């Protein structure tokens, strides 16, 4: 199955799928605008008794998998008797329905009023069960449970970790109101972490996913805050004379790299998340900003116009002589290193259009991944498969995601207002 998927991914065509409609309370809606031409056909049979949970558990699993661009959910007619994870599987019948994979499950009500969900995944080509899990949950945890099931299926069939249980942060601007929101990776279940009448930019997840660093202009200047998502407590991490901006967490969560103007210009400093231990690590007369740690914590990539135009550079995590990383084009900004450290996503100006580019750090090949023209703020999914970014569509800010191979595309837009500054959160252990 794995080898087969790799082959399928080799095809380079865009398929168009109808929009998937999320539940009404979702503040972001997602639209798949491109997918791999060849996707794993999978039958996700509605779980026996799942109506007791309210929203369709199996439908959320299917939507998750389809959104990845790697799966195609098959329509399943009513089956009598309705199979469960314990049923014996007639593989020939599922092969005749063109399913390469099959998910069966059931939902039972427990004596304490909670529910138990069980499911099993089958490879109908190899005719083997690939495993299953049982979860105990309350009604409020249906979406979270569905995302976990989708993660399990995704990992078993593709060999890489799924990101359906992860969350995204972004900023919505409506009129003069700015909201920093957190939502599931599918845009559902959005919650507002901070509302303000002044701009909020550059949210950055702490490695443990519990805190966000960001820049708020509530004091008429940029100030870096650290905000605990569980209790809503926030504190100033950097508020020196001048501008304080562009926070990035070190992989161990012990430090923030920030861009400060306290000594003139915009220079990169390290500071502890509690505001102590300030140390300057660049020394130029240029703008040095947008620092990002490499996943191993040894390097910092950043944007600098020390060479006359904004380009991306790399230096040691405690400073040192920077090496230039981007050379093609006169405007390359917003470096984001992939989770495996092998590729660098950034924004390039390409004939007046701002687009997401991906640089292979080993062979120096650059690929432009998008065909939009006002892209900003790229952000890797924690498995490195998709890159979330902001763009503008019909005059409105929307979020878009593109796969690292450029083939799968999704769009998330709010029912009203501009959405921008996305940041994809880490895996939750």
């Amino acid at each position: 199955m794995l080898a087969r998927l790799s082959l399928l991914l080799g095809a380079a065509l865009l398929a168009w799928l109808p929009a998937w409609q999320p539940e009404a309370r979702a503040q972001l809606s997602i639209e798949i605008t491109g997918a791999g031409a060849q996707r794993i056909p999978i039958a996700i049979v509605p779980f026996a008794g799942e109506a007791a949970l309210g929203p369709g558990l199996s439908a959320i699993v299917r939507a998750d998998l389809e959104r990845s661009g790697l799966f195609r959910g098959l329509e399943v007619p009513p089956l009598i008797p309705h199979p469960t994870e314990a049923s014996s599987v007639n593989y020939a019948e599922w092969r005749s329905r063109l399913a390469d994979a099959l998910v069966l499950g059931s939902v039972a009500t427990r004596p304490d009023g909670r529910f138990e969900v069980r499911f099993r995944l089958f490879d109908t080509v190899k005719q083997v069960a690939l495993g299953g899990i049982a979860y105990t949950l309350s009604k409020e945890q249906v979406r979270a449970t569905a995302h976990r099931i989708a993660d399990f299926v995704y990992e078993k069939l593709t060999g890489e970790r799924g990101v359906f249980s992860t969350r995204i942060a972004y900023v919505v601007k409506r009129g003069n109101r700015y909201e920093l929101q957190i939502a599931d990776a599918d845009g559902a279940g959005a919650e507002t972490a901070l509302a303000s009448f002044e701009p909020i930019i550059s949210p950055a997840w702490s490695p443990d996913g519990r805190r966000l660093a960001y820049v708020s202009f509530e004091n008429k200047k940029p100030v870096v805050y650290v905000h605990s998502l569980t209790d809503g407590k926030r504190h100033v991490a950097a508020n020196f004379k001048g501008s304080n901006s562009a926070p990035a967490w070190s992989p161990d969560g012990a430090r923030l790299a920030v861009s400060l103007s306290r000594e003139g210009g915009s220079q990169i400093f390290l500071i502890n998340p509690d505001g102590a231990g300030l140390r300057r690590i660049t020394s130029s007369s240029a703008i040095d900003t947008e620092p990002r740690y490499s996943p191993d914590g040894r390097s910092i990539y950043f944007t600098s116009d020390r060479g006359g135009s904004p380009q991306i550079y790399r230096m040691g995590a405690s400073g040192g002589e920077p090496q230039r990383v981007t050379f093609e084009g006169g405007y390359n900004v917003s470096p984001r290193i992939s989770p495996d450290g092998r590729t660098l996503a950034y924004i390039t100006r390409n004939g007046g259009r701002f687009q997401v580019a991906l640089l292979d750090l080993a062979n120096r090949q650059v690929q432009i991944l998008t065909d939009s023209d006002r892209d900003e703020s790229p952000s890797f999914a924690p498995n490195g498969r998709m890159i979330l970014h902001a763009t503008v569509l019909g005059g409105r800010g929307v979020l878009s995601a593109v796969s690292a191979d450029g083939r799968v595309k999704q769009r998330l837009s709010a029912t009203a207002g501009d959405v921008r500054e996305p940041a994809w959160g880490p895996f939750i252990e």
Partner: protein
Amino acid sequence: MRATLIATLAAASCAALLAACSTTPPPEQAPAGVEDRSPGAGKPGASQPVEQKPIASVDLTASRQDPGAALRDPSNILSKRSIYYDYDKFDVRDEYRGLVEAHAKYLRENPGAKILIQGNTDERGSREYNVGLGQRRSDGVKRMLLLLGAKESQIESVSLGEEKPQSEGRDEEAWSKNRRSDILYSGEY
């Protein structure tokens, strides 16, 4: 800090007003009205104009209530607070030299006065890099004010990047309004 500033500004303004009074030549004394007691008084003669000269008022309290009046007087160059820039440029154009010099003079004469300079950019490109570009603009104005005698402690230069556009449009006309530095005095931010 605020109270100190107001007191300082008030004192400075009073001093300025008093100085103005002492150097302006006093208006010519008007003749006092004298009753005509000459013979034939009581009979109406040629009619005389009734004159009452207006009093020139000196109000020392107004300046205390409103120390920054000059900063907001539309006829005063100090009320001009925005410096606009060409695309990808950071130097103060000649047409804004007078404005910057006036603010430098005010800061020199009012050592307690403090300002915030907010640099801004148009919307194109990275938000964070634009914070850097806006900072380059506000730093440039600050440097000029320091050369003209203002003190480091009076000035904070910051950047709002592309986040606070004056015009929301997406053309050069809008962008040219958004590439600017704004000067705000203490109490205005």
